[in-house]
């Protein structure tokens, strides 16, 4: 499993395109928002946590089809399926690799981009924390979506349609943590609920993803 993880990370970094693309997308979304709503700093301060969360979510979504598609096309997945690894382990490692290459950079970049949006001083820590807790859920849910649409020729749009409704609870609690943190309110309740969703998704969804992959590899 470690070998698989190392291989996925190396591919993401060296093959070009994938790694950093999500980060650039996140930057562009954040830059575009002030053009859309106007440069008024008070307004930007108010919407900054939500914008950062939506930007991170979209950047995550953009890179989902790369989780499994390349391995599906060149037959690596078939080989992995016959390997003595459980399918659940394979999809978990895939999700973890996606999180390390996409989620983690987003988490680290979010406070920097917060400066552009004039994020309230108290908000930096909680944007970082909420994204750190929430993005693993986005990767795991996204892996499920990617496994569902893997056999389709043009699954990209369908993948978004399937995955975005599943992102709703994560987004609600994540953005709520960031917003409350920025306004200096109590964050424990939404943070615990966000953690619950994240860990619940990590524990249960790999079984669904593995079942879906087995069906698709049949």
């Amino acid at each position, binding site marked *: 499993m470690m070998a698989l993880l190392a291989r996925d990370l190396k591919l993401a970094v060296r093959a070009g395109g994938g790694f950093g693309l999500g980060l650039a997308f996140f930057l562009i979304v954040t830059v575009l928002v002030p053009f859309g709503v106007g440069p008024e700093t008070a307004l930007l301060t108010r919407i900054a946590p939500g914008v950062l969360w939506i930007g991170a979510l979209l950047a995550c979504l953009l890179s989902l089809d790369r989780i499994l598609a390349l391995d599906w096309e060149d037959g690596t997945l078939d080989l992995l399926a016959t390997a003595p690894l459980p399918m659940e382990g394979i999809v978990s490692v895939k999700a973890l690799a996606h999180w390390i290459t996409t989620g983690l950079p987003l988490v680290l970049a979010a406070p920097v981009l917060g400066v552009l949006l004039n994020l309230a001083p108290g908000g930096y820590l909680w944007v970082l924390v909420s994204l750190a807790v929430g993005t693993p859920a986005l990767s795991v849910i996204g892996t499920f979506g990617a496994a569902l649409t893997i056999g389709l020729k043009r699954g990209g749009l369908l993948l978004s349609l*399937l995955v975005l*409704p599943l992102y709703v609870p994560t987004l609600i*609690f994540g953005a709520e943590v960031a917003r409350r943190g920025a306004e200096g309110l109590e964050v424990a309740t939404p943070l615990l*609920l966000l953690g619950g969703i994240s860990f619940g998704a990590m524990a249960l969804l790999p079984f669904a993803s593995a079942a879906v992959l087995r*069906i698709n590899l049949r």
Partner: protein
Amino acid sequence: MGRYVRFMSLWEYANPVKFIRTTDVVLPWVSVLAVLCLVVGLIWGFFFTPEDYRQGSTVKIIYLHVPAALMAINAWMMMLVASLIWIIRRHHVSALAARAAAPVGAVMTLIALATGALWGQPMWGTWWAWDPRLTSFLILFLFYLGYMALWSAIEDDDTAADLTSILCLVGSVFAVLSRYAVNFWNQGLHQGASLSLDKEENVADVFYFPLLVCIAGFVLLFIALVFLRTQTEIRARRTRALIAREQQG
């Protein structure tokens, strides 16, 4: 004894031929009853109930809004049960019934949202508010769209049935999660009970009885539509199989 047990078994209807034969008999009755209930309930509701003292005649939207909302949720529940039956016992009729129910449920959700907007405009002064109930219905609609899109995107029938069943299971969990997350998200802005009239203790008997008839009408309508659409799916699949056999031979 054996004959009796066989007659009583629900799984008998997993046989497509048996399913079509039985629904052929039942379908006209259900359809007629549905039309009867809807006509009686709607006319009773629209013309023979008093107007609400605060809401005026707009209260009559309730006769479409509440049954549609009820069926929107129950259609998803039916799809969930049918998906489970497909995953566990692999009866094709079950998978096809889930597929047949999805567009009906989506339309019910749309009716509930549209009538709700029409009702909201005179009552709240807005077509749309990010109220928990409204928001979770919109999310439910998105789930229906995704489910139908996945069905139509996959060519192989069995793979499509498998994948959509799992999507339905996972989607159900997330739909429930979203329902409560949305409650949490907009707690401070709206209080649920005073905005919605779908708590039955809020409704006086004059409105309650025609509402019950309308609900019965919508349930029967849903059953009739699902039977009809499932029959169509079965026949379409049979036609495809026959055509494939012709081309081979």
